[in-house]
C-alpha cells in the first residue's frame, strides 16, 4: 500500500469534463511530477489531493484514510507564492503553524532557523514586496515545510520565476529535501516543463488533454544531482515529449 493513493478521480466544471478517471499510487520517498498540456486539470488534481476541492468521483487515500479536507501532514506551495503582502516574511512563514498548538516563542524560533536554512537571514521583518520572485518562493517554501509535513504538494512552483532563478532554486530544493532534518517523505509537483520534471522526479505521471487521464507513468532512475546534458537525461526527456505529443 502506498503512502498516498489517487483512485479513479473524476471532476467536471459545469458540463465540461476536466478529469476522467485518474489513478496512481505514491510511495514513501518518491518525488512525483504530474505533467500534461495546459488546461488539462493538473492544478485541479493537486487541489483535490490537498483536500481543497472535493472530487466528483473517486477518492484520495492518505495512509489508508480518505482525504476530505486539508490536513496537517499535507502542505502546499503555490505558483504565485500566495504570500500575504501585509504580513512580514516571518509572519507569513509562521502561518504554516496555524494548526499547531505551540507557543509564539517556539514558532518564532522555528521560523528564524528556517530563514537561515533557506538563505533569507536578515529579511525576516521585511515585507514580501521587497523580495525578488526567487526569494518570495523561498518564503513560500519555508511556510510549507515549517510544520514538518510528510507530503509536500507543489503547484508549478518555478514557473513564475525566470529560468536562471528557477534553476538555482530547483537545486536548492533538491538539496533541502534530501537533508535528514526535513521529514518530507513525498513530493508531488505539477509542472508543464518536461526538463524540470526529469531533473527532479523519481516518477512522472503523464496526463492527456482534457478530459485528462493517465497516459503513462514513467520511472526515472537517474542519480541526483542529474546532469541535464547527459545522454540518459536526454533520452528520458525525449520519451516524455513523445508520450505527450502522441
Amino acid at each position, binding site marked *: 500500500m502506498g503512502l498516498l493513493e489517487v483512485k479513479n478521480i473524476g471532476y467536471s466544471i459545469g458540463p465540461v469534463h476536466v478529469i476522467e478517471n485518474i489513478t496512481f499510487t505514491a510511495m514513501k520517498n518518491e518525488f512525483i511530477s504530474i505533467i500534461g498540456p495546459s488546461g488539462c486539470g493538473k492544478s485541479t488534481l493537486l487541489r483535490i489531493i490537498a483536500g481543497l476541492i472535493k472530487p466528483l468521483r473517486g477518492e484520495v487515500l492518505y495512509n489508508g484514510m480518505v482525504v476530505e479536507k486539508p490536513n496537517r501532514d499535507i502542505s*502546499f506551495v503555490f505558483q504565485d507564492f500566495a504570500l500575504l*503582502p501585509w504580513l512580514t516574511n516571518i509572519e507569513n512563514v509562521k*502561518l504554516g503553524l496555524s*494548526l499547531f498548538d505551540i507557543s509564539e516563542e517556539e514558532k518564532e524560533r522555528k521560523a528564524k532557523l528556517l530563514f537561515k536554512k533557506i538563505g533569507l537571514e536578515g529579511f525576516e521583518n521585511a*515585507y514580501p514586496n*521587497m523580495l525578488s520572485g526567487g526569494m518570495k518562493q523561498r518564503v513560500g517554501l519555508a511556510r510549507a515545510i515549517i510544520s514538518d509535513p510528510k507530503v509536500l504538494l507543489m503547484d508549478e512552483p518555478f514557473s513564475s520565476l525566470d529560468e536562471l532563478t528557477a534553476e538555482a532554486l530547483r537545486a536548492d530544493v533538491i538539496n533541502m529535501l534530501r537533508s535528514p532534518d526535513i521529514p518530507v517523505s513525498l513530493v508531488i509537483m505539477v509542472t508543464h516543463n518536461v526538463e524540470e520534471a526529469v531533473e527532479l522526479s523519481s516518477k512522472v505521471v503523464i496526463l492527456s488533454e482534457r478530459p485528462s487521464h493517465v497516459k503513462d507513468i514513467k520511472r526515472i532512475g537517474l542519480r541526483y544531482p542529474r546532469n541535464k546534458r547527459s545522454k540518459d537525461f536526454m533520452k528520458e526527456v525525449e520519451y516524455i515529449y513523445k508520450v505527450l505529443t502522441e
Partner: protein
Amino acid sequence: MFDYILQLLVDISFSWVRMFIALGFSILLGLGLGIWAATSRRAEKVIIPIVDILQTLPILAFFPFVIYIIVAAIPGYMGINAAVIFLIITSMLWNIIFGVYESIKELPHEFMELAAIYGMSLKEKLSKIYIPASMPKVMSQSTLSWAIGLFYLVTSEIFSTSNETFMVTHGIGVALTQLALSGNFSEYIVGILILIVFVILTRLLFFAPLERYFNKHNMSNIQKTHAIRFVHLIKSKLKLKIPKARIPIKFAFGKKRDTYSLSNEVIIKQKKSEYANLVYAALAILFVAVIFSNKTLFSYELSILVALLASFARVWFAFAVILLISVPLTVYLIFFSKRLSAYILLFQIISSIPATIMLPLIVSLFVKMPFHSEAVAFSVYFLSGIWYIIFSILSQKAYIPQSIFEVKRLFGIKGLQAWKKIYLYAIVPGLITGAVTGIAAEWNASIVAEYFTSSGIGNGAVLTSVSIGIGKLLDVSLDNGNMVLMLLALLNFTIMIIVINRLVWKRLFNRIEDIYK
C-alpha cells in the same frame, strides 16, 4: 477679546467628537457588512443592492424625520446628538462598505486556499486576511467619508438652530450661524479659517499617518522600476487628495447585464425583472388607490408633487449653471494649464468648507435683494454641487492615455473639432459620476437652502423661505408636527430619486461603459 476664539475651539471640538464617533462606527460597520457581503453569497444578495440604493438617496432630507423620531425616543441633549451622529454615519458608511467589499473580492483565490490548508480560524482569517486586506481602502474611503460627513454635520447643526426643541448646543455650525446672524462678520471669517485649519490638520495628523501605516507593505517596494513607481506615486496622490466621486461606476446601479452570458441566465434574469416590474406596478396602483381614497392625503400629495417640481427645477437649474462653469474650467485645467496641482490644492482648501456653512453669510448678503430666498437657495445648491463635479472630472485625468495629448499635438487638432473629438470624450465619464454625486449633494442641502428660521438661536425671524419647495415642506411639517405629510413627502422624494437613477443615470452609465470599454 480672544474669548470668542476659545469658544470657537470648544465648539469645533464638540463637532469633531461627533465626527470621530461617527467615523468609528462607520468603519466598524463598514468592515462588518463589507466582509459579510464579500464572503457570503446570501448576504451579498441582500446587502449590496440595499447599499446601492441608500447611497444614492439624499439622506439629509430625512433629517427632520430622524431627529423627530430619535428625540422622541431619547429626549434632550443625548437624543439630538444621537440623531446628528446617526445622520453623519449615513453619509460615511456606504463607500466604506463598498471599499471593504471590493478589497476582499479582489483578493487572489489562493489566499482562501491558504486559509483552508493551514486551518485558519475565523478570528485568524479576520485578523490576518480580511481586515488587513481592507484597511488601505478603508482609510482612503474614510478621508472621502470625512469630507462628506463634514457637510452633513454642519448642515444638521445649522438646521437644528431653526428649531428650539431640536437645537444642538455646541458645534461649529451652530457657532458660525450665531456669529453671522448677529452681524459679527470678522469673527465669522475667523471661524471659517479655524474650520479650514482643523480640516487640514485632521488630514495631516490623523488620516495621512494612518494611511501610510496601513500601506506600509506597499511603500518599501524596491522591485518596481522608476517609471512604474512614478505612475504609482501619481495614482496614489490622486487617490489621496481628490475626493473622487463617491460611487464607483460599476457599483453605482448594480452590474450591467452580461450580454455574452449564457442565454439561460439572461432569460431567468428577464423573468425576474418582469416579476419585479409586476411588483412595482402593483405597488404603484396600491399607492394611487390609497391617495385617492382619502381627501387629506390627496391634497397632501398634490402639494408634495408641486413642491418636488419646484425644487427639481432649482436643483437642475443650479446643475446647469455648474456645468456651464465647470466644463470649460476643467478642460482648461486638464489640457492647457501647467499648474493643475496648484489649482487642485487651492480647490481642496476652498471645498473643505462645507457649502451650507455659507448659508448665514449668503442670507445676510442677499437680504435686500428681490427674490432674496430664491437667490439664497440657488447659491446654496450651486455651492453644494459644484466641487463634486469639478473634482470628479479632474480625477479622470489620470485615466486619459498620454497618447491622446500627443495625438492632439501631432495632428494639430484645435477649436470646435478638439471639443467634439477630444475634450468631451475625455471628461464625460468623470462628469457623469460627478453629476450623480453633485446632484445628490444639492438635494441634501435642500432642508436648509429653501427654508430657514432663527428660532433656535434668536428671535424666530424667518431668514429665508422660498414660496414652495420640498425642503421647505419637510421643515415646515416638522415644525407643525405633521408626520403624515412628512412621511408621504419622503416617500415621493425617494421614488423620484430611484426613478431618475433608473431612467437617466443608469442608462448613461451603460452607454458610457459601452463606449469606453
